């Protein structure tokens, strides 16, 4: 594995015992970050192909909450209690974070029912569900901007704003075109990453051989804008009880057009009840 220092490999092979109160510490080691020194102004793209990459969403959610950042979570796929219960396993309480104003949570499933069956007076972030033709995601962007722009009344200053979206492919399923979603991401990046010096993390499914052109457009467009891409894939050989999949980490520099190759690492992982363990390819503890 090019560019990796020996001490890291040794730590991986030893299997550092994770404290159950941390979000995936092994993933932090791989990404070379800790909650104290989280970078700013970055767009991270999470992508899953032939497998479920939602554990990465849980990781980043608890990571940024632990890092004392203000998080706006656009949760379109599951209910609040689902994320809350998993976050508690990782040592973070979403309910408490929401109460103290650190977390702004948009629960897509519940809000969609509200907006669909009753006409709303104010523009609702999921207003596009009521529209006949493909609209745009401006109300959603306004919601995000309002959630993350720090108020002027001198409230407790959070470290930096973070926008987390789970997931963008759902927006395509709900009638948005890939261009509309890319516009939304662009506006959010301009506000969150550049203006407010925050971070953005989004999950997109890779449909693989399902010939979903809109999804491919979205995925390729986002790949070029991201600073960090985490791609989970199911194993090519099929299902395995001890190795749930493979994770590719790709560090990019979208602004610089250097010919230097971007750094990338590949690991395999196994998801457990409260933790995800990573190991080098072919080095699963079940085989060694």
């Amino acid at each position: 594995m090019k560019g990796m220092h020996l001490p890291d490999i040794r730590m991986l092979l030893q299997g550092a015992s994770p404290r159950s109160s941390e979000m995936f510490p092994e993933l932090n080691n791989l990404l070379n970050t800790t909650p104290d020194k989280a970078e700013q102004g970055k767009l991270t793209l999470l992508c899953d192909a032939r497998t479920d990459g939602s554990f990465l969403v849980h990781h980043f959610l608890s990571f940024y909450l632990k890092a004392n950042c203000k998080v706006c979570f656009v949760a379109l796929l599951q209910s609040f209690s689902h994320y809350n219960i998993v976050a508690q396993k990782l040592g973070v309480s979403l309910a408490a974070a929401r109460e103290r104003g650190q977390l702004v949570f948009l629960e897509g499933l519940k809000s969609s029912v509200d907006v669909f069956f009753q006409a709303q007076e104010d523009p609702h972030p999921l207003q596009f569900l009521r529209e006949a033709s493909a609209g745009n995601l401006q109300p959603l962007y306004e919601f995000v901007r309002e959630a993350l722009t720090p108020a002027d009344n001198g409230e407790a200053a959070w470290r930096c704003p973070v926008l987390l979206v789970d997931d963008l492919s759902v927006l395509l399923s709900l009638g948005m075109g890939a261009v509309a979603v890319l516009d939304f991401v662009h506006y959010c990046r301009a506000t969150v990453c550049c203006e407010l010096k925050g971070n953005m993390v989004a999950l997109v499914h890779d449909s693989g051989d399902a010939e979903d052109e809109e999804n491919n457009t979205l995925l390729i467009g986002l790949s070029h804008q991201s600073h960090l891409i985490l791609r989970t894939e199911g194993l090519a050989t099929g299902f395995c009880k001890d190795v749930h999949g493979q994770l590719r980490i790709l560090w990019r520099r979208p602004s610089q057009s250097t010919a230097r190759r971007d750094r990338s690492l590949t690991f395999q992982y196994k998801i457990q009840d409260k933790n995800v363990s990573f190991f080098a390819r072919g080095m699963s503890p079940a085989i060694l």
Partner: protein
Amino acid sequence: MAAVATCGAGAGGTESMAAATSKSNVTSFQRRGPRARGTDSGGPRLVSIAGTRPSVRNGQLLVSTGLPALDQLLGGGLAVGTVLLVEEDKYSIYSPLLFKYFLAEGIINGHTLLVASAKEDPADILQELPAPLLDDSCKKEFDEDVCNKKPESDIKMKIAWRYQLSPKMEVGPVTSSRFGHYYDVSKRIPRELIETSKWHGFFLPEKMSSADKVECCSLTPGYMKLLHFIQNIIYEEGFDGSNPQKKQRNILRIGIQSLGLPLWGDDVCCSENCDSSHSLSKFLYILRGLLRTSLSACIITMPTHLIQNKAIIARVTNLSDTVVALESFVGSERETNPLYKDYHGLIHIRQIPRLNNLICDESDVKDLAFKLKRKLFTIEAEWTVRERDREKGLSFVVGSPSNDRHGRCTTLI
């Protein structure tokens, strides 16, 4: 996954929990902190509803799908608040059975039913539900089956001895369990049971004839009406806890038959580039929103073999919770294959949701074959079929690799 013995114990446990709950409002099983799932209505833990049990893994409330073999593969049952999507087999022979098992299970447990269909009147569907098996008669029949089967299963596998140690999938109706029943497909359900049960029917031709002005939206009118109908029932009967007059302590079982057919006004099965390509996925999203906020579980059968655009199938799968696909051997080359002579088709578990958890109860076996007997719908691992026949000296035909998300398991011995 719980074995048969603990299944019985678990059901007994639920009964005792129910008794405890009814006596006093405090039970030791009360979960501290945020509620796992379901409504926000106050009160004791929802273990006292008939026909439900909490999941072993994450405390989720589960209902039976009507097929105990399938319950076991799904990790104990179908979670309340989720959608079970059944991808229909080619000639729609076995998927209506799964649909009927689900509804019949609801009637036996006293759940409220909501049956929606575009091609069959819900009243007719309910008349054709299979009759439940009572304990003493079914035990006798099952013992007969076991006797007939005994010589085969006693053959010790010489080559693939490891497979002998693995548990079989089928669960026999040995004890009367409150969770999951067995049905006799040759008999109809007694009329009294249907008459005493509470059900609502949505027959699309009837509903479309009424000239209500439907608000313009990108959903097909048929889907719009169905969503409004479901939302109305949920609200009126208090399944979401928001109606102050109604305190509902029951499960609503929703069954939607053959969603996506052109009969619904949707052209997703007709052409590859359809106009209303988002109608179906939008419908599923909002339906799931309704389910998550109420005490209901839904089964949808969908003829995915008719959908030309693979992207739509992928989206629909991502928007559903549990996805099961049936593949029958009728009309295919496998019908005459001696390897599969005992079986009627394959069943693929395409997706199991990870609810309140990082992991889910996935079965280790991905290749499953099913067989419909009069009183039992069995699901067995495919390789036990092949290995058993290999021992007998039959020719071994390698089937085509299963094209679902997970391929063969490579065991490292």
